[in-house]
């Protein structure tokens, strides 16, 4: 693999990484944001594997993206449910 090709590969990795981060940060839907954050974490693990840090990549995938993501996802699901409940009560309140 030539140096130029490798650089393009690196660029793609990095740009995607930053793109995922931005998407996770600005996504309007919280649950979607968490999903994107998990994707970001997994992608980060991939980048780290590229940087010859397999131990850390493994840990990031399992702990950072995996368990951290799972925790956030549970919270996001609860938040979404709460919003739905609130929305219903609000709607009812307006009707009444």
């Amino acid at each position, binding site marked *: 693999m030539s140096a130029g090709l490798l650089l393009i590969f690196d660029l793609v990795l990095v740009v995607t990484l930053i793109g995922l981060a931005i998407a996770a940060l600005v996504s309007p839907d919280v649950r979607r944001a968490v999903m994107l954050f998990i994707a970001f974490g997994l992608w980060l693990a991939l980048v780290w594997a590229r940087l010859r840090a*397999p*131990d*850390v990549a*493994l*840990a990031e995938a*399992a*702990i950072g993206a*995996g*368990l951290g993501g*799972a*925790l956030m996802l*549970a919270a996001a699901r609860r938040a979404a449910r709460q919003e739905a409940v609130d929305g219903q009560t609000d709607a009812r309140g307006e009707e009444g």
Partner: protein
Amino acid sequence: MRRAASLIIGAIITALALWLLWVLQTALDMGAGPRLAEQAFAGLPTTGVSNPVTAVLLSYRGYDTLLELGVLLAALLGIWSLGVASPGFQPAGVVLSGMVRLVVPLLVLTGGYLLWVGGYAPGGAFQAGALLGAAGVVMRLAGDETAGLPGIRAQRWLIVAGVAVFVLVGLATLALGQGFLSYPQAWSKWLILAIETAATVAIGTTLAAAYVGGRPWSHAVVGGRD
């Protein structure tokens, strides 16, 4: 108004980022600065493990790892102090529970494997512990309220196991006149393995318990909320 504020913040942070990028470039331009890698590799044979990352974590900078396990413990204690766990989800269907019966042992097995190879290949206590924790998460998702964890008393002992074994090893070496956490070379490998095993169990338990998200019910019945 809010929009304006966020734009101003954005501008400031952009400036900050550019500054930091410039500094980073300056730092990198100064040439390959010194690093600890060579020393770390040089010391590797005496540590009893051949995976350099494990060597750093458990031997060179074992004290950091000890405190880090303390952080994990503190987080769980904090979570427990906030209230009791909510009941889990409704019992899973047949298909899901079948899958669970398959996935959980697989996760545990992989965890054990990662723990074992951590000495010479990528892996180690944290990754293994994470998989154990993941097994707990899966079980709770499948409807097991306790995430497969034992009763409160056992849980308490399990979550402190990692730090406890670590610090006791440290004190033992101190008592032997070696200095805190200075493993005798002959024992090094086995001491590290023992610490890692305890840490794996503790990490797994703690992460699963953190996912459960409150102190277990049995305790709540005794104590009540605050």
